[in-house]
């Protein structure tokens, strides 16, 4: 019973809230009303059973809560001689068909006039239905800080009048990319081990794919997340980092890989060749045995042309090292100038080690270690240094 309720809540929160915001034109009022409706449901449904149309029930209850609140405020306002201008909630809301306004909601939450961390927090709170406390814990800040961040963001949406709408055609690509970037950022936060965020990002990705079924980049992002996430179990062994080549493939989630590849196929069928589609294609090749490094190198090359990112070039270097040998990889790495990027040094170290240039490899591992805060990554580099010392000792 409890799981069923949780599932219904999970599925309905974003939709109910989005419709309420569209209807009331006010984030705070909508959120309070939705919260009250869900609280009433949590109290009644276990006793009376889940209504036949839970969404309509939640929406009607929330709307009534909002209307009551507006009336109370109006009575209060009249008492103090103030005018209340907003009469929107007096307009009857159709309760048979509710518009799905989740897209409007996510575009508002990811508006470029909001700070990125505010975009992330708002998206998780409104669409994802995470509590302020849950978001705070996931991003390692205090609940108070996160609450302030949300209040400020909602305040700005209202004060600066950030529109609640799907952007017009000439803005859509740019704004959709901002939305995808937020989802990807949430996923990456989760990739470091906070599983709930990765799961949340995939959930948001699925919702977006449902809302924008014809956008190849939306599908590409979902495919990439599914494919990366499918190796989650194998990426750590007893809390220690395991590189792709050393992973226990029996721990890969084959169902999720198939799922990711199906999304990738759809993206390609839609003519997708954007950055997320390319990254999904690379992730799909990484999950294949044997790995087609030549194809991976070619895709990274294409991605470099799109993004001009030296980090992408670094990844291409790794693939090139597999096909043309470590020397060829090293030539690319040494032309990148990413001196403060720890993965540049760890990649250099691996290539130098393969070339037998042990002293240089050691120096590069040390430089990588200097730049690394993460515990598991540091321990990984320590192990590499120890192994290197052992080879030198024996040789």
């Amino acid at each position: 019973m409890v799981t069923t309720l949780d599932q219904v809540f999970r599925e309905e929160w974003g939709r109910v809230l989005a419709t309420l915001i569209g209807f009331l034109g006010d984030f705070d009022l909508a959120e309070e009303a939705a919260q009250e409706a869900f609280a009433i449901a949590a109290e009644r449904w276990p006793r009376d059973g889940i209504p036949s149309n839970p969404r309509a029930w939640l929406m009607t209850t929330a709307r009534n809560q909002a209307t009551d609140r507006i009336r109370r405020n109006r009575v209060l306002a009249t008492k103090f001689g103030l005018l209340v201008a907003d009469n929107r909630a007096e307009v009857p809301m159709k309760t048979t068909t509710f518009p799905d306004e989740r897209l409007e909601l996510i575009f508002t939450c990811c508006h470029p006039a909001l700070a990125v961390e505010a975009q992330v927090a708002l998206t998780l709170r409104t669409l994802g239905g995470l509590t302020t406390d849950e978001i705070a814990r996931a991003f390692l800040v205090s609940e108070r800080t996160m609450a302030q961040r949300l209040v400020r963001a909602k305040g700005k949406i209202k004060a600066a009048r950030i529109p609640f709408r799907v952007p017009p055609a000439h803005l859509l690509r740019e704004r959709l990319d901002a939305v995808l970037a937020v989802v990807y950022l949430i996923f990456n936060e989760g990739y470091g081990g906070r599983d709930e965020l990765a799961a949340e990002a995939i959930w948001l990705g699925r919702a977006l794919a449902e809302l924008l079924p014809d956008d190849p980049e939306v599908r590409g992002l979902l495919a990439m997340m599914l494919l990366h996430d499918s190796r989650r179990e194998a990426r750590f062994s007893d809390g220690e980092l395991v590189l792709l080549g050393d992973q226990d493939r029996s721990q890969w989630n084959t169902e999720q890989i198939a799922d990711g590849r199906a999304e990738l196929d759809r993206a390609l069928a839609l003519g997708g060749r954007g950055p997320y589609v390319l990254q999904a294609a690379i992730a799909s090749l990484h999950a294949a045995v044997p790995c087609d490094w030549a194809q991976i190198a070619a895709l990274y090359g294409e991605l470099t042309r799109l993004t001009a990112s030296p980090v992408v070039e670094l990844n291409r270097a790794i693939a090139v090292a597999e096909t043309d040998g470590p020397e060829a990889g090293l030539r690319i790495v040494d032309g990148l100038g990413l001196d403060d990027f720890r993965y540049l040094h760890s990649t250099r170290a691996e290539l130098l080690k393969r070339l037998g240039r042990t002293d240089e490899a050691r120096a590069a591992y040390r430089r990588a270690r200097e730049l690394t805060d993460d515990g598991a990554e540091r321990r990984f580099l320590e192990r590499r240094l120890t192994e290197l010392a052992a080879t030198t000792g024996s040789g």
Partner: protein
Amino acid sequence: MRYIMLIYQGTALEQQAALPEEEQKQVYADYQGINQTPGVTPGLPMGLPQNATTVRVEGGKTLTTDGPFVGMKEAVGGLFILEADDLDAAIEIAARVPAARYGGAVEIRPSEVYW
């Protein structure tokens, strides 16, 4: 909604001075175009930041200091008032201000009724 559009010149004045005459004319034409855009009320041309005076009142005492308000690196170089439906519409106008593309910026402030 009324927006106050604050223009920060940054390096724009120097960059524009170095432009060929034709492009300089384009800059003037662009500003004029914005001033004539429906919804726009042009502001008065502002003097240079070094001629500004900032006034603060602390504990009932008026303190005047030389120069612009030092909360940021750049000083406001001009402003206009814009009546627009929402922030997106204001952003589109802001992006047309030449300073925005010559190293300066435009700050959009929604207007507020304080009294």
